[in-house]
């Protein structure tokens, strides 16, 4: 059957999705709601990591400020809720439009720069959002804001129970994976990937690479804002800390653990990150040390992340994909 994944890594990823699909029922069955929470959080962050991977992995744009869009998405739930506007479509629409506008504005400036400068300017813009939120006394400033009720959708789309919220998350995760897969393999994606490796050549071929990159940046920001919208609903609490540059650094970390520029890499990377964080912090308060050393080792020795290691299985098995 040709529609089945041919490669070993492809089969592992497909199995992973199949395992994730019924997770709420499984955790209910073994009576462990805590694990559903953990998994929900992991998958929300995975959506953010997947969106970052679009610009970082496929487009070669290293942003150290992507957490800003998580924050924007979350505050687009929190602020309307503060005024008793709970309509989910409003939250969704705001998250997408505010993130798109902010990405368009800041991307238009950031993408005029390259390399180190791009890293720094994206970080600077996220720090700006951080400080704006920090100074908004009305919305709790650094204490943050409690969201008392989840976004309201029609009954069949409700996210009120933890199971239904999980399927919101899982559904948006699948959609983003599928959408980015189409995007990268379509004409648009070829331009983005080509520009990562050889921008000068792409321009000589007639592509206005700046415009394509800007659109790519905006799309990535919008997907990340979806993750933020989900995170606001999931946590029921938002604060400027969601945007600090350390959060953006962690997002890059998740992408790297999984494997830059692979479709499923950020998903497995984020799950690995969240699980490690959870269990290491149970073992020792000094778990950051292990984390830091892992990160250094990963860069110095472990090129390609988890996806890279799984791809080794492909080569051994002779498959392709």
């Amino acid at each position: 059957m040709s529609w089945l994944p041919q490669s070993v890594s492809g089969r592992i990823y497909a199995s992973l999705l199949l395992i994730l699909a019924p997770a709420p029922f499984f955790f209910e069955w073994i009576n462990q709601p805590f694990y559903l929470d953990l998994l929900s959080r992991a998958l929300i962050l995975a959506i953010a990591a997947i969106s970052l991977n679009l610009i970082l992995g496929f487009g070669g744009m290293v942003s150290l400020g992507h957490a800003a869009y998580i924050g924007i998405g979350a505050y687009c739930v929190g602020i309307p809720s503060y005024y008793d506007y709970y309509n989910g479509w409003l939250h969704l629409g705001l998250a997408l439009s505010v993130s798109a506008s902010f990405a368009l504005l800041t991307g238009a400036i950031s993408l005029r720069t390259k390399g180190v400068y791009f890293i720094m300017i994206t970080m600077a813009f996220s720090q700006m959002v951080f400080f704006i939120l920090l100074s908004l006394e009305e919305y709790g400033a650094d204490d943050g804001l409690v969201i008392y009720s989840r976004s309201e959708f029609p009954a069949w789309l409700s996210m009120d129970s933890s199971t239904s919220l999980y399927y919101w998350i899982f559904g948006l995760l699948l959609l983003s994976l599928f959408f980015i897969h189409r995007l990268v393999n379509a004409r648009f994606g070829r331009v983005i990937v080509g520009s990562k490796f050889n921008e000068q050549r792409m321009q000589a071929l007639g592509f206005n690479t700046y415009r394509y990159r800007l659109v790519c940046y905006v799309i990535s920001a919008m997907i990340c804002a979806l993750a933020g919208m989900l995170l606001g609903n999931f946590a029921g609490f938002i604060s400027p800390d969601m945007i600090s540059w350390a959060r953006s650094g962690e997002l890059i970390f998740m992408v790297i653990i999984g494997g830059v520029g692979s479709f499923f890499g950020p998903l497995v990377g984020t799950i690995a990150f969240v699980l490690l964080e959870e269990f290491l912090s149970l073992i020792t308060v000094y778990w950051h040390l292990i984390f830091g050393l892992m990160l250094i080792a990963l860069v110095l020795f472990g090129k390609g992340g988890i996806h890279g290691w799984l791809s080794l299985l492909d080569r051994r098995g002779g498959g392709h994909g």
Partner: protein
Amino acid sequence: MVDNLLVIRGLNKHFGGIVATENVNLEVEKGLIHAIIGPNGAGKTTLIAQLSGQIRPDSGEIEFGGHDITGYSTARRAREGLARSFQITSVVMPMTLLQNVMLAVQGTSGHSFRFWAPVADDSEMEAAAMDSLAVVGLDDRADRIAANVSHGEQRQLEVAMALAMKPRMLLLDEPMAGMGKEEGAMMVETLNRLKGDMTILLVEHDMDAVFSLADRLSVLVNGHIIATDTVENIRNNAEVQKAYLGDSHA
């Protein structure tokens, strides 16, 4: 009436106190292979960069197909039909030869804000790309990764990419740079195949190749064109021999 595709008038470019291009006037006739030769440091690379839009001239104008393109970006010039190859091989290394050439087809066939349909399923685009690969004799290696083929094949790929843009004119910057004898002969053969159908502005060091290919020659010395003529006349031009052929063919 001579049909000139490219006309350069009074082009000047200085870097600080250094003159890179000085009052260059040049006309490239449609359908001909027009070669530019000159000793090292004569300003050939700077001239090419100004034609392709990477560097803006200080003064002067560049007219292509009757339009003033002096203010156009590199990308816009490419879409207008001015395709170039690079002196230092410049392809997308991790992609296959076919994918590289398909990018070239894509670059000049409308915008690429298409987010859904897979490029791999686009048989029309693939066919166009395969045609260009066939012209340079790489169609049997279309699925090889660009980084893994020989230097000569990468140079051929450069030409295939330029051709795939269906340009009105090719700007070839030392297509034979770093090539062995055999690879060079293949490139000459490829360019010979294009002769008559395609207008080509060729910058090349290999004199034998230039003399066998070019319909017309311009000699660039110190940023200035000292002569433009047929190959035969340039060979016999005393001034050119003194300025150029004399010292490099010693």
